[in-house]
C-alpha cells in the first residue's frame, strides 16, 4: 500500500513491536504526530515536559522491560535536547530508537529555522545514525536501526527524517522484524582455557555487570558460584542481576562499593567478569587494581576485551553460551578457607556499618533505604538520579530480580531519574520508586507534569540535604572543606511544588515521619512525592579515593566542622 513517509515511520514502529513512544511535538514532526494520532488505538504517545525527559523515559522503559524504547523529537532544539539522554543510553548500552524531524531537504544546509545537523551532533554518542533523505530507504533504515540497536552490545540509534520525506508517498508492506545479528560462539579451546582457570582457582569471585543482564545469565551465575564455592560481586550496572539476599552476593564493588565486595575481589585469585568493562569508577587506579588475581572476561563486545584492564582469558561473543559451556566443564569444588575469609570481611563490614549508625545523630540514609525496602515487593522498579542518594540506593536497596534497576552509570546524568522512572512505570506496569537528591531533582523536575498527566505510578523520594552532597563529600575530603558552588541556599518547598504540579507531597524529618509519609505515598495509585531531610554531613562510605586502590579504602570520615560559607 502507498503511505506517506510519516505513516511509514509509525507503521514500521508498530511492525517492530512498539506500543509506546515518548516525545514532544513540533514543526518538523507534525506529520509524524498526525500519523500517531490516527493510530492511537495501536500505539501510545507519551508527551513529556521536555525532550530530555522523553529520552530518559525511553531509556527507563528499556531498563524495566527489556523492550527497545522509542523517542520522537522535532528538529533543531528538540533534537539537541535529546543529546544528554542519548549519551546516557550510549554509555550504559541501552538500545533506543530516536526519531527526529528535520527541515525539508531543499532547506537543508542553509541554516534554516530550527535546522540542526543532528546526525553530526550525535555521531559520537550513538551506536549508529541515519539521515533518511530518501523515501525509498526510510522503512529499511528504521528496520535496520532496530536490528543494530538490539544486536550485540546494544545502543541508541538515531534516524533524522526531513519534513518533505515525511509527506512523500511510497509503497510500504508490513515485514517481520529483522533477527538479531548472531553473535560469535567461543571456540572449544577458549572454553577449556577458561574452565581450567576456574577449576584451578581457590578463591573465585564472579563479577557481574550490565552485560550479564543482557546475556540472561542471572541464574547461571548463582549456580556457578554455588558449584565452585565462589562469591559474587557486581558493578553499578550489574545490580539486580543477582538477588541481594543470595548469601554469596557481596554487593557492588568499586569506588563506593561494599567493603566486603571490594576487599574480596582484591583477595580473590580469579575474577570471572561477565559483561564488565572495568570502568575507572570500578577499578580505581588501573595500575594497582589487579595485584593478586587473574581475570576471565566474557563480553559481547570484542573491543572491551583488554581495553581497560589486561586479562588472562578474554572471550567475546555469545556470553550466555560461553558461560554455560565453561561451567559445564568445571567440576564442583569446596573452598572453606575462602568462605572463612569472606565471612570475616562481612563481619568487618557489619562492624563498620554499626559504628557509623551509632555515630549518627539523626536518621541515616541507610535507614531511609531500609524503610523503602520494607514496602517494596519483587516487581518494584528502583530508579535513581546521580549522587550520594544513588550510591546509597546501590548499597542498600534490596533487589529481588533483574530489570528492577534504572540508574545512569557511565555518563552519571543528574536529572536522569524522574524521566527514567516515568518510563519504567509506564513500561513495566509496576510501581516505581525514584530515589533522588535535591540537586538532581532540581534539574528536570518539570517532568512532574508528565508523571501527573500520565498518572505514572512513581513514588519520588528526595534525599534533601540542601547541598550537592557528593561534590561536597569530595570537597570535604580533597578540597579543604571549600564548599564552592555546592551549598545551595535554596528555598524550594518540594511539598508545595508537588501540589502545584497536581500530586501529593509529604515531608519527613525522622524515621517515624518518613515511614508514615512513604507508606502513604507508596499506596497512592499514581505519582506522589516525599521530601526527606538528610544530614548534610552524611557521607557515602566506604570510599576508594579517585586514583587510589583498595589499600586506600576510607571507611569512616570525621564529621566536618560547620561549612565556612
Amino acid at each position: 500500500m502507498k503511505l506517506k513517509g510519516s505513516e511509514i515511520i509509525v507503521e514500521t514502529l508498530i511492525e517492530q513491536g512498539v506500543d509506546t513512544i515518548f516525545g514532544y511535538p513540533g514543526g518538523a514532526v507534525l506529520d509524524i504526530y498526525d500519523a500517531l494520532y490516527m493510530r492511537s488505538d495501536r500505539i501510545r504517545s507519551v508527551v513529556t515536559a521536555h525532550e530530555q525527559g522523553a529520552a530518559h523515559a525511553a531509556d527507563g522503559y528499556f531498563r524495566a522491560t527489556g523492550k527497545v524504547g522509542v523517542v520522537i523529537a522535532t528538529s533543531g532544539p528538540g533534537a539537541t535536547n535529546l543529546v544528554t539522554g542519548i549519551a546516557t543510553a550510549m554509555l550504559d548500552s541501552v538500545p533506543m530508537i530516536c526519531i527526529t524531524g528535520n527541515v525539508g531537504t531543499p532547506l537543508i544546509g542553509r541554516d534554516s529555522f530550527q535546522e540542526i545537523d543532528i546526525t553530526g551532533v550525535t555521531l559520537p554518542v550513538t551506536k549508529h545514525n541515519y539521515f533518511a533523505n530518501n523515501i525509498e530507504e526510510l522503512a529499511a533504515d528504521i528496520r535496520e536501526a532496530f536490528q543494530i540497536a538490539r544486536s550485540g552490545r546494544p545502543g541508541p540509534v538515531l534516524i533524522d527524517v526531513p519534513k518533505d520525506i515525511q509527506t512523500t508517498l511510497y509503497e510500504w508492506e508490513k515485514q517481520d522484524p529483522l533477527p538479531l545479528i548472531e553473535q560469535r560462539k567461543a571456540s572449544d579451546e577458549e572454553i577449556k582455557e577458561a574452565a581450567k582457570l576456574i577449576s584451578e582457582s581457590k578463591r573465585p569471585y564472579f563479577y557481574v555487570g550490565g552485560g550479564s543482564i543482557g546475556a540472561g545469565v542471572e541464574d547461571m551465575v548463582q549456580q556457578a558460584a554455588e558449584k565452585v564455592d565462589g562469591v559474587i560481586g557486581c558493578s553499578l550496572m550489574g545490580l539486580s542481576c543477582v538477588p541481594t539476599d543470595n548469601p554469596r552476593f557481596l554487593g557492588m564493588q568499586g569506588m563506593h562499593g561494599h567493603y566486603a565486595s571490594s576487599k574480596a575481589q582484591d583477595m580473590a585469585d580469579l575474577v570471572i567478569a561477565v559483561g564488565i568493562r572495568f570502568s575507572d569508577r570500578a577499578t580505581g587506579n588501573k595500575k594497582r587494581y589487579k595485584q593478586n588475581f587473574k581475570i576471565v572476561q566474557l563480553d559481547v563486545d570484542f573491543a572491551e576485551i583488554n581495553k581497560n584492564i589486561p586479562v588472562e582469558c578474554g572471550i567475546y561473543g555469545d556470553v550466555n553460551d560461553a558461560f554455560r559451556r565453561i561451567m559445564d566443564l568445571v567440576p564442583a569444588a569446596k573452598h572453606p578457607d575462602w568462605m572463612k575469609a569472606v565471612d570475616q570481611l562481612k563481619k568487618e563490614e557489619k562492624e563498620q556499618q554499626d559504628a557509623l549508625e551509632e555515630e549518627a545523630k539523626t536518621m541515616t540514609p541507610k535507614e531511609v533505604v531500609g524503610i523503602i525496602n520494607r514496602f517494596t515487593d519483587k516487581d518494584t522498579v528502583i530508579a535513581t538520579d546521580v549522587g550520594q542518594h544513588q550510591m546509597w540506593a546501590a548499597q542498600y536497596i534490596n533487589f529481588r530480580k533483574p530489570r528492577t534497576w534504572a540508574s545512569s552509570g557511565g555518563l552519571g546524568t543528574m536529572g536522569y531519574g524522574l524521566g527514567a522512572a516515568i518510563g519504567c512505570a509506564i513500561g513495566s506496569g509496576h510501581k516505581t520508586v525514584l530515589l533522588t537528591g535535591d540537586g538532581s531533582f532540581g534539574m528536570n523536575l518539570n517532568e512532574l507534569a508528565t508523571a501527573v498527566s500520565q498518572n505514572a505510578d512513581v513514588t519520588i523520594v528526595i534525599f534533601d540535604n540542601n547541598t550537592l552532597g557528593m561534590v561536597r563529600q569530595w570537597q570535604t575530603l580533597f578540597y579543604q572543606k571549600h564548599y564552592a558552588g555546592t551549598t545551595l541556599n535554596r528555598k524550594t518547598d518540594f511539598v508545595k511544588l508537588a501540589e502545584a504540579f497536581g500530586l501529593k507531597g509529604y515531608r519527613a524529618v525522622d524515621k517515624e515521619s518518613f515511614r508514615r509519609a512513604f507508606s502513604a505515598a507508596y499506596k497512592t495509585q499514581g505519582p506522589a512525592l516525599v521530601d526527606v531531610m538528610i544530614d548534610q554531613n552524611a557521607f557515602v562510605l566506604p570510599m576508594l579515593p579517585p586514583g587510589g586502590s583498595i589499600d586506600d579504602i576510607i571507611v569512616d570520615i570525621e564529621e566536618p566542622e560547620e561549612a565556612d560559607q
Partner: protein
Amino acid sequence: MSQTDKTNKFTIAVYVDNKFGVLTRVTSMFTRRGFNIDSLTVGETENPAYSRITLTMSGDGYARDQMLNQLRKLINVRKVQVLEPEKSVARELLLLKLANDPSVRQDVLMAVNVYRASIIDYSPDALSIEVTGAPSKIDAFIELMRPFGIIEMCRTGLVAINRGSSTIFKDGQ
C-alpha cells in the same frame, strides 16, 4: 595485550561503505578515542558500493589493537587489515613546484631523472614535478629539492596493498 611494545608505524587498510558521511564517522571516532593519525587516504574500489581508506599511525601494540577494534565496531566498516611492511607494497604521490631558475635547472633535471620523477608542468618562471614511490623515497626527494627553493608541494598520503593473492576480503578481520 602488549602495552610495553615499543612505538611502531602501522599501515591499516579499511574497507567501508561508500556512503555519505562514512569518512566523518571514521575520523570522528579517532578524535573521540584520542587516536593520532599520520596520514589518511580514501578512494573508490573495484566495487562502487565500497571505498577503501588507508591510514598510517604510530603507536604500540595496544594502540594498534584498540584502533582495529574501534574501527571494526563502526557499522559502515566492513573489513579491517594491518598491512605488514614486508608483505605489502605501499606508494605515495608527490607534486612539487620549484622556481624555474636556470642556474640550478640542470641539477633539478638530473634528480628528476635519477628518481624516475617527471616534469608535469613547465613555464618560464616555475616547474612542477611528479614523483611516486614509498614514503622514504618521497622524503628523500623533498630533502634533495629543498635547497632549490620549494614554492609549493602536496603529497597524497599512503596507499598500500598486500603482495601475492592475499586480500583484505580473505585475510582482513
